[in-house]
């Protein structure tokens, strides 16, 4: 161990987005010596890209809202595969977490009477998303960052963690490298919190940044932890489709929350024909009714109409858009139209959706106050992740915690918009709290033995082997294309089996990638290392998707198009055993009667 730079902490938090920052703040507040380790500069994490808002039943705009309605919406959105206890804790604690942000200096948009304003979003019965225009994530990350820097947390920026180190069954620390110098580093710790985000870089069209290379998912699996719900990927219905440069870049659901409508090339609002059985009766049936709802919302009144079908859950809207395009009713560049220009005034659009206005004007030469946007689905969010104890966020490996997108179970088969920012606050706090407790109750550090570290270091340096010859960028590109076409929005047994064969071939090639230059700030080398995470997690997703022979939420099977009640009682667990990645079934925990009755209305 002496060969490498070594640090000792009670708690190491990996990832400095909302979940990681919130976890580190809490761990530190509990008295644990805490490190926050992140791949980018502090404040640049994926959370800054969250736009629409944070869901919390504050009931500032509609007094009928409460945690029970939020809980019910979340479970329905997840098609009842969610770990009910996580969904319950989330709905109950989100309001406190949002108010706490205000006490730490966050400035949310205001209601007329000066309270935190809330907006409508898909799948939420009432206006529930506290927001700051369309840059809510930036506000949250900056608030947490500014809180965190005064709290005595050590921040290790531009440092990538590659491996969880174990002493017997429990966590002993983690191993990684400094991106700038390329030097290896060992963090010895009593607890590790994974807050590494998602896996979107395995797909070609994605709203996710370079950081989303499945690091935490893979490290947890390699360390022996269970993953859950890995077949469920959220394709956000509205990504940009043109020009190619911005394909996949996110367009906030807030556009539809503010009254935006989806149109096909015949200018038809096709979402009226796409209301699933489960939501029948809850959405407007005519354009007139939908318009009445928007008019009431704009006028700050309680609507006497049902909401527009554009605000159905993301899985439903993404599939509907895909169908319009497949059946020849798409826009010129293979999407559909999202129109806000004919619904709201230019000044309202610029006020409520400023970064959308800017993004389209600068990058697509479209003025969204005058013309419709072209949109299509983009890989956005990983519902699946590390299986955790709902109360503590501890994984099945003692001392290893997970929060935010890398955690699994909260969202079931489909996440509602706005529930991600609240998820990372609620469970980030809990992960930090319980990781600190775990660390403070542990008397001594586990041993990070040299063999584990040497193996990890050797693996990292393999791409400098002179006998290699593959380009890491090319292998990555092929993986992305493969996952896009064979493990995308709609899947089939043949496609998934094909994908497994191809993943194995790509793995052979990934073992032979070669990078030039030296270890200092070398993105080619960094990507070469990341291929192993992405390949293993792509395999995990594909195997889980093959196993689930039904369609539900973010998992649609062409060959099994319906939801099956038996599958509705079952989560899939992915675990690495030896070198094999295996899938098993796990029955859902029964929901207590008092929660069950919320669905009997």
């Amino acid at each position, binding site marked *: 161990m002496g060969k490498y730079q070594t640090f000792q902490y009670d708690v190491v938090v990996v990832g400095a987005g909302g979940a990681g920052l919130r976890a580190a703040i809490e761990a530190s507040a509990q008295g644990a010596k805490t490190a926050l380790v992140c791949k980018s*500069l502090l404040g*640049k994490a994926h959370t800054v890209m969250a736009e629409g808002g944070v869901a919390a039943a504050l009931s500032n705009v509609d007094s009928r809202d409460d945690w029970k309605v939020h809980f019910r919406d979340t479970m329905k959105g997840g098609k009842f595969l969610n770990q009910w206890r996580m969904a319950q804790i989330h709905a109950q604690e989100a309001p406190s977490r949002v108010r706490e942000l205000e006490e730490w200096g966050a*400035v949310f948009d205001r209601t007329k009477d000066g309270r935190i304003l809330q907006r409508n979003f898909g799948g939420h019965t009432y206006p529930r998303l506290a927001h700051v225009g369309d840059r809510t994530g930036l506000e949250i990350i900056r608030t947490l960052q500014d809180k965190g820097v005064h709290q005595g947390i050590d921040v290790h920026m531009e440092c990538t963690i590659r491996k969880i180190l174990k002493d017997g069954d429990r966590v002993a620390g983690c191993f990684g490298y400094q991106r700038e110098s390329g030097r290896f580093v060992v963090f010895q710790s009593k607890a590790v919190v994974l807050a590494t985000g998602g896996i979107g870089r395995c797909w070609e069209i994605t709203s996710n940044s370079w950081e989303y290379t499945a690091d935490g998912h893979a490290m947890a699996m390699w360390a022996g932890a269970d993953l859950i719900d890995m077949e469920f990927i959220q394709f956000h219905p509205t990504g940009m489709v043109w020009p190619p440069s911005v394909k996949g870049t996110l367009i906030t659901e807030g556009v539809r929350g503010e009254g935006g409508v989806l149109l096909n090339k015949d200018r038809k609002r096709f979402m009226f024909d796409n209301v699933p059985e489960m939501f029948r009766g809850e959405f407007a049936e005519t354009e007139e009714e939908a318009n009445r709802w928007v008019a009431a919302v704009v006028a700050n009144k309680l609507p006497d109409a049902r909401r527009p079908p554009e605000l159905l859950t993301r899985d439903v809207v993404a599939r509907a858009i895909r169908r319009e395009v497949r059946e020849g009713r798409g826009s010129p560049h293979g999407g559909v139209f999202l129109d806000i220009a004919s619904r709201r005034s230019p000044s309202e659009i610029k006020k409520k959706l400023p970064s959308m206005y800017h993004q389209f004007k*600068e990058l697509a030469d479209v003025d969204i106050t005058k013309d419709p946007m072209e949109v299509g689905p983009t890989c956005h969010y990983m519902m699946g992740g590390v299986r955790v104890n709902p109360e503590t966020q501890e994984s099945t490996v003692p001392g290893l915690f997970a929060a935010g997108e890398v955690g699994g179970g909260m969202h079931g088969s489909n996440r509602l918009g706005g529930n991600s920012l609240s998820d990372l606050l609620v469970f980030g706090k809990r992960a930090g709290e319980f990781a600190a407790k775990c660390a403070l109750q542990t008397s001594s550090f586990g041993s990070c033995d040299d063999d584990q570290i040497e193996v990890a270091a050797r693996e990292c340096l393999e791409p400098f082997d002179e006998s290699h010859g593959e380009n890491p960028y090319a292998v990555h590109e092929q993986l992305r294309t493969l996952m896009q076409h064979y493990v995308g929005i709609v899947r089939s047994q043949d496609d998934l089996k094909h994908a497994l064969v191809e993943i194995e071939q790509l793995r052979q090639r990934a073992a032979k990638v070669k990078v030039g230059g030296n270890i200092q700030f070398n993105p080619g080398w960094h990507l070469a290392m990341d291929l192993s995470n992405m390949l293993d997690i792509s395999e995990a997703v594909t195997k889980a998707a093959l196993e689930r022979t039904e369609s539900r939420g973010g998992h649609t099977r062409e060959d099994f198009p319906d939801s099956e009640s038996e599958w509705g009682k079952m989560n899939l667990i992915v675990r690495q055993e030896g070198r094999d990645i295996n899938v098993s079934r796990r029955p859902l925990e029964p929901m207590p009667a008092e929660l069950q009755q919320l669905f009997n209305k």
Partner: protein
Amino acid sequence: MDEQVTLMIYRGDNVQGEMKEYKIPVAPGMVVLDAVHAVQATQAPDLAVRWNCKAGKCGSCGAEVNGRPRLLCMDRMDKYPAGEPIAVKPLKTFPVIKDLATNVSWNYDVNKKIPAFKMRDTKGEEPRFSQEEADRVQEFRKCIECFLCQNVCHVLREHDEKNTFGGPRFFVRTAGLEMHPLDDENRLDLLKDQMGLGYCNITKCCTEVCPESIAITDNAIIPLKERLVDQYYDPLRKLYRILFPAKKT
């Protein structure tokens, strides 16, 4: 636009380096960051460049394109004259780590000096303030920390006064706290004694380059300067302070 474009990219570190030429094919709507990525994927895998959101929201990819500070992800290639090479250099004000990545850690050190938000006592009531009050500070809170303003500020760029001057980014941040309707902290001493607000002679270079269009000079720096003048140089106040010393205004 031509099918091929020539990029001249700085390769090297703080000690030595050179502008290297790369040719890549162009696609419609391409931004400079796409072009740099294309070079990375096909010709120079170890080319260092920071990026994250690719939509102007995270402020990671600041650099100087043909001498102008820009976010690479928002800088359209078709704005530049066809057939002419495009030069991409790292931000000048900060030491180069490698290629286009610079060491901006000084900014994080300055940030730490600024006292945190301190909630005023709302006597147990839910805090309330109007959207108009929110608007004023939300403008400052839009900042994505790209540090382009720091890069062009002559106090930092030409005079390298990093020990005595905070720079526009942190005047914006301080303004966002000082004008926050719920804040109860006083940062005027800090602005005067440690952040050198007086060095700013309002040339508005920072405002010009801000990708978020924050009116840095007019809305943040000038009002803060006025507050300093009121606090420290108003003769009546000075007398009052001598007669009634108080810990804050």
